[in-house]
């Protein structure tokens, strides 16, 4: 019963739309404008220079290094989060002793800000005074303390693990939501059909969880791609830019070296990459999902 003409829904959308356009739209335009200008150290625009900033960015080896690391960072953290969160969600969806406690603990990393997590981890990973080395040595796992953040490769790996750790709560919640909406009788039918628990996971849980996995991937990619605090607080992209990803390199350029034009260009490139990924992903993966779920009722 279409009792309302097209105008009313638009009116309901408007306030929110205006706020978002105003608060987010203006800075994006400002950013675009800045990226096409020559900018002084302190953000004063010195006149139009077309795509010089972009040219400078593309000729900068550190940009390409950061881009590569950003890809590694995003893929590893997002995949890692998914691979761990799915079994965790399946477990938390099942009834067992202490489930309530387990759920709260798994959600804890969400309760503390990223910056604080990074500060605490940096304090714990400190070579000599850090408690991580102390604990590992007490347990006899190691004899010599490891300098976790000394060398780029190891530091980057540790940062990616922490990136996964803090993304698990959000992803697990999405999966828990998905799991609890799955049709229970299909599982019983599959037991009768001769499915082992692994068959159930492969042929029923996974396919039916696809929409939730896709949503988790898109959102996680967006959040992880733009995540500054962990790497910045722990290694500031160092040592020797070995752990710089686009967002930390951009932050360093803008606020330490005062190259605001170049930084704006990078942020636009980042937005472009992210937009491209999301559009392709939504079109390719989530489209074919739409028609299987079509025609739900009689």
């Amino acid at each position, binding site marked *: 019963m279409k009792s309302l003409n097209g105008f009313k829904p638009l009116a309901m959308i408007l306030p929110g739309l205006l706020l978002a356009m105003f608060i987010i739209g203006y800075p994006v335009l400002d950013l675009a404008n800045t990226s096409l200008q020559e900018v002084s150290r302190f953000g004063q625009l010195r006149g139009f220079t077309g795509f010089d900033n972009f040219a400078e960015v593309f000729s900068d080896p550190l940009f390409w290094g950061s881009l590569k690391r950003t890809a590694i960072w995003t893929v590893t953290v997002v995949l890692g989060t998914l691979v761990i969160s799915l079994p965790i969600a399946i477990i938390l969806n099942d009834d067992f002793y202490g489930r309530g406690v387990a759920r709260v603990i798994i959600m804890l990393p969400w309760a503390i800000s990223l910056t604080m997590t990074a500060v605490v981890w940096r304090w714990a990973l400190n070579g000599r005074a850090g408690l991580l080395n102390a604990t590992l040595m007490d347990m006899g796992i190691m004899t010599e303390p490891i300098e976790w953040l000394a060398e780029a490769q190891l530091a980057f790996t540790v940062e990616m693990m922490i990136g996964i750790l803090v993304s698990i709560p959000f992803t697990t919640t999405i999966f828990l939501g998905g799991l609890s909406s799955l049709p229970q009788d299909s599982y*019983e*039918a599959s037991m*009768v*059909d001769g*499915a*082992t628990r692994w068959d159930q996971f492969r*042929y*029923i849980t996974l396919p039916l969880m696809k929409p939730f996995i896709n949503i988790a991937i898109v959102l996680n990619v967006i959040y992880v791609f733009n995540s500054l605090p962990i790497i910045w607080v722990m290694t500031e992209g160092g040592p020797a830019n070995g752990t710089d990803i686009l967002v930390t390199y951009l932050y360093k350029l803008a606020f330490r070296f005062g190259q605001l034009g170049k930084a704006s260009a990078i942020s636009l490139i980042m937005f472009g990459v992210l937009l491209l990924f999301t559009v392709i992903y939504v079109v390719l993966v989530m489209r074919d999902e739409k028609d299987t*779920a079509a025609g739900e009722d*009689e």
Partner: protein
Amino acid sequence: MASVKIRNVEKNYGSLRVIHGVSIDVEDHEFVVLVGPSGCGKSTLLRMIAGLETISGGDIMIGDKVVNDIAPRDRDIAMVFQNYALYPHMSIFDNMGFSLKLRKRPRSEIEEKVMEAADILNLKPYLERSPGQLSGGQRQRVAMGRALVRDARVFLFDEPLSNLDAKLRVVMRTEIKALHQRLQTTSVYVTHDQIEAMTMADRIVVMNAGRVEQVGAPLELYDSPANLFVAGFLGSPSMNFIKGRFRRAGDGAHVLCDDGTVLPVPATSGATDDQQVVAGIRPEHLRLAGEGAGVAATVDVVEPTGANIELFVELAGERVCAVFRERHPFRPGEKIALGWELDKIHLFDASSGHRI
């Protein structure tokens, strides 16, 4: 094929016992129907046979093997669920062939089996569709197809027709029965609909509150119900019950109702004099008595169903229902007299409800 033996099986949820020592033997190729009001434990019993519920006591044997602790997939049984339990994300073809795919059967065999079942259930045009795009009836047939393809030793049906409209239910009933006659697979069918039980079963098990009331062929149960519950449960419209005292008079016998009405009963009955009894007479066994004979009754409500007329009368202070094939012009309030063949009336002991 295989028989299914249930040896005083019990089931309790915590302290609540829902099935009290039930024993049933389903012979090979037999079609046994578990019938009873909702909550009587019939579905629980079926799920215990399927292995979807743990067994608290007693044994269940399929063929000659005790299956209490065997997983559903290893019991070689197939099940049709009440709301079909089809895999929403798979095509009809994959739904039906899933059990074979799990057992890693070659593609050709799966195709052949699924086609064969689709033929029987004329599902061929829908094989590539997803369950969401089918009607209730079609989905119900796919659920059956899935069981067929499984060609298990035992078929289990959990009220498969309850979600269908009345018309379709009748059609599917005959289809399932025809299928059984053709495949002869041992089947256990659960329903709360006594007409389904009567029409489909080789043998019926009437259950109530976790206990077996009676087991037997449909007509055997219909004609000589072991107790009040079975008598009242089978038959639609259900049997009339009138309380009174049993009296022997000379070589005849009758039941004296509280309001003085006398109901003629067979003298051969084993009831003792002055025993509190309940007389049961099926609506279709009542007929208009001749002048001066039968028991007085006043017409209350007349319900023509087309095929016959269901007449509700006031008799011996109770509401009694009578069914006539002929179209008598009854009018509410009219005084009539009803009679019955002596061998058609049943007597039950008032306190125990057992048949006398």
